[in-house]
């Protein structure tokens, strides 16, 4: 009788463990499907940037008002997202140590000139830690960008639910709503398509 009791307990334990595993698997699949249903741009043939949970979180900004921020530019001037109300804005997170970031930044520069008449604004938000401002400035100069580079505060990465990788970009329409989001450096034509979507053309 005692044996039967112990065996039954063991069976229940195994059952519980398997159920927990299957439950978690279903939860993960649901989360992944939700993430994949959003627009995520990844270069052709490239390994999609990983970090599913974070990716899903930042993609959840899609269709919502972009989190407000006030940061300082390389000249020490305060710049707020609200300053650009009524204009399409690209918020690109980058770092000096990120090769793909520096690959795509000249494209943002090119498009900011190409769509200047449409009021396009590009903001590059640096994500370096403990890197002197002059090094960030020199990196931006070397890459050849002239758009506004902003230095991060302690909350913006959390506000935008950034993943553990760069670059990451948000495309905002003139109402400040996130209408596009890319993880990693997308192909140039896809980047332009996102910019056009933000401009409503």
């Amino acid at each position: 009788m005692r044996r039967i009791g112990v065996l039954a307990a063991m069976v229940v334990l195994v059952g519980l463990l398997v159920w927990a595993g299957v439950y978690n698997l279903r939860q993960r699949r649901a989360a992944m499907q939700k993430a994949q249903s959003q627009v995520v741009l990844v270069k052709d043939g490239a390994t999609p940037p990983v970090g599913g949970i974070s990716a899903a979180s930042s993609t959840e900004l899609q269709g919502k008002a972009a989190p407000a921020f006030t940061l300082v530019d390389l000249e020490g001037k305060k710049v707020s997202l609200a300053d650009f109300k009524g204009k399409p804005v690209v918020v690109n997170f980058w770092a000096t140590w990120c090769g793909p970031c520096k690959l795509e930044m000249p494209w943002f520069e090119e498009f900011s000139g190409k769509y200047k008449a449409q009021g396009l604004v590009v903001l590059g938000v640096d994500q370096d830690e403990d890197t002197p401002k002059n090094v960030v400035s020199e990196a931006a100069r070397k890459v050849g960008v002239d758009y506004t580079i902003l230095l991060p505060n302690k909350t913006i990465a959390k506000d935008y639910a950034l993943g553990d990788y760069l670059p990451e970009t948000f495309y905002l329409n003139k109402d400040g709503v996130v209408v596009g989001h890319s993880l990693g450096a997308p192909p140039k034509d896809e980047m332009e398509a996102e910019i056009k979507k933000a401009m409503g053309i």
Partner: protein
Amino acid sequence: MKGQVLGFRFQVLGMAVLALVVGASAQDISFGDVPAKKAHVVLLSDGVDVAAGKAQVVELRFRVEPGFHINSHAPKDPLLIATALKLDTGHGVDVQGVDYPKGSAFQLGQGKDAQMLDVYQGEFRVRVRMIADAGNSTMTGMLRYQACDDAACFPPKNLVVKVAVTGK
């Protein structure tokens, strides 16, 4: 009677082991596709045998996760984070120097926008010049690296290096 009790205990033990294996397996299924924040480089060397008291070179083997690369010790762009191994001296191991392998060329991007990088991919070996005392010691230190694929980069990371050294 004693034998029956012993047998029963073995059955219970067996069931417990089975429960753990099945349970762990089930958990593994659920977390299998969660990449989370993980290391992109692993240390393959766990121990080396050396001649005690003599200057010599040992190779530490590392492996970069498939699909990723890390900058070599001498990246072309000085802003990129160079791979660097910093080893502690003491505790029976006198580290006299570290020599890095040459990187391989990696093309980032295509066409006129392409950039050439100098990287490590797959397995790479760092040569450590050292003198070890007789007996068992531990070589400790840190490998600093920064991993990317061809579309995104992860922040710089530090890999703890711990290698058992046996001086004979």
